[in-house]
């Protein structure tokens, strides 16, 4: 297995708070790696540093064999590092298809086309339709996003990330605020994508994490205190004390 993502000694300080503390982590190609940890452990800050929206104070991020620490978010996105957002930030006035096609357009270089309608360009629309199907949203293809339910918007968010066929997917709480049934849909969708994409998943839904992840890292106060297979984590004493309390995991 080749290494897709290598994080070395990453640090980020907000005033007196060390959000990321000398953090090192590596992801193998094709792996689904989950990061769990209590609120305020610095998971979203870490995702922000990987996507390029937050600049680290020190350390290095290597993606697909290249140092990307100094690259802008857009440059990272174009190299195949895609993130989905914890707060859905799609385009509510557009239809599902328009949203995903626009995301496809971002990966096709220039957008100085002034005449042919975007939706009349198969090179853009066909991958978009495929991605929408992958995200399980085919039935809502022509619906306006403002008419979608919360869970469907998260699926759309996923389709917009998938359309570019990224090498690495950063999934920031893809199941946040979802009903039990909706999160079940997302788990099935992600299971279908496993192996094809390398994924870094930040999620609070423990059922989902333990069902999906190849490996799990536990983050507390900006540091990773344990890393291993779901079984390792479940039986790790330090994790139980630091994160899950004295009680055993309810699994």
């Amino acid at each position, binding site marked *: 297995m080749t290494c897709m993502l290598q994080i070395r000694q990453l640090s980020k300080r907000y005033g007196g708070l060390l959000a990321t503390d000398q953090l090192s982590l590596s992801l193998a190609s094709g792996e689904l790696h989950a990061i769990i940890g209590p609120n305020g452990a610095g998971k979203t800050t870490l995702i922000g540093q990987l996507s390029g929206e937050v600049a680290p104070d020190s350390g290095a991020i290597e993606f697909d064999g290249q140092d990307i620490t100094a690259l802008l978010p857009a440059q990272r996105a174009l190299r195949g590092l895609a993130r989905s957002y914890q707060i859905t930030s799609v385009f509510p006035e557009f239809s599902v298809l328009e949203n995903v096609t626009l995301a496809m*357009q971002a990966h096709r270089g220039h957008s100085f086309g*002034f005449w042919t309608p*975007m939706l009349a360009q198969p090179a853009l629309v066909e991958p978009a339709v495929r991605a929408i199907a992958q995200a399980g949203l085919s039935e809502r293809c022509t619906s306006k996003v403002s008419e979608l339910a919360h869970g469907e918007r998260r699926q759309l968010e996923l389709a917009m990330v998938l359309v570019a066929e990224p090498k690495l997917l950063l999934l920031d709480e893809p199941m946040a605020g979802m009903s039990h049934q909706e999160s079940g849909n997302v788990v099935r969708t992600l299971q279908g994508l496993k192996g094809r994409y390398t994924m870094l998943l930040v999620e609070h839904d423990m059922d989902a994490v333990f069902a999906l992840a190849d490996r799990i890292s536990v983050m507390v106060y900006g540091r990773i205190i344990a890393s291993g297979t779901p079984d390792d984590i479940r039986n790790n004493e330090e994790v139980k004390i630091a994160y899950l309390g004295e009680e055993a995991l309810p699994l």
Partner: protein
Amino acid sequence: MMRNTLTAWFVALVVLMLLAVPAYARLANEPFALTFVSRILVFALAAVSLNLILGYGGMVSFGHALYMGLGAYVVGILAQHGVSNGWVQLAATMATCALVGLLTGAISLRTSGIAFIMITLAFAQMFYYLFVSLKQYGGDDGLSIPARSEFGLFSLASPLALYFTALALVLLSLALTRRLVVARFGMVLQGCRINERRMNAMGFPTFRYKLTAYVLSSMLCGLSGLLYANLTGFTSPAYLAWTLSGELIVMVVLGGMATVFGPLVGAITLLVSEEILKALTDHWMAVLGPLIVLVVLTARRGLYGYLLDIDAWRARRQRAAANATGEQP
């Protein structure tokens, strides 16, 4: 292409009426009607250009009359120096507006929201005072244009030629808008309005696209200035006053922001009701003001938006009816 919708019938009706205006003016012996509707068309062209950045791009420019004034002054200044060749004037207008649009746009678009409104206003005022201070070109009093633009085949000295040129340009700009806003470029532009941060995250260099739209809009607006100078035979700093910029915004908002046909509807509505109310009362502004407020408050997408809403409602009802009959057998 044209479906059987209210908006399609409405657009067809408006275009037919505009085509019939010259015949009416001649038969009813009311040459003023032709001049008046010409003025509407000139402002409609400016409003269409503003709608591109304000409606679709979400960039509220409060200085768009600047480009109308620039177009008018290019015609005026060239004519004063004996150049009344329309093609030369056209090229000079386009070049001037593109250059000024590029420079002021590159600076203004570093900001957004209120700051953008103020900075576009500031640039327009800068040029306003520049033309006030140019005494050799009339200064405060404005500049009479000795000869109208000659385009070889036709001359804008003829009111009829001016009218049809303006009408053709308005229709062309509407067709262009209709294609542009759903093409790659237009979708990016609209994306910038709805969620610019996300556009950046997706890898779009948004500044470049917004600047292109701004320059395009400036050039289109310059065209309206060229026509306006020919219509009035005159140009003055008032042609780039902030009140005129405000009037253009009102036209776009009243007719329907981010709708293709809205700016034309807005220009017609504002100027016609102004004319009617002026004949009725000296206090016409006191009547027109509340009317505008009413439309803006009740219609999300202006007057034209009402029609679009009715069409959408009818389409939904038809779909529902089709579903109902489909289930019965």
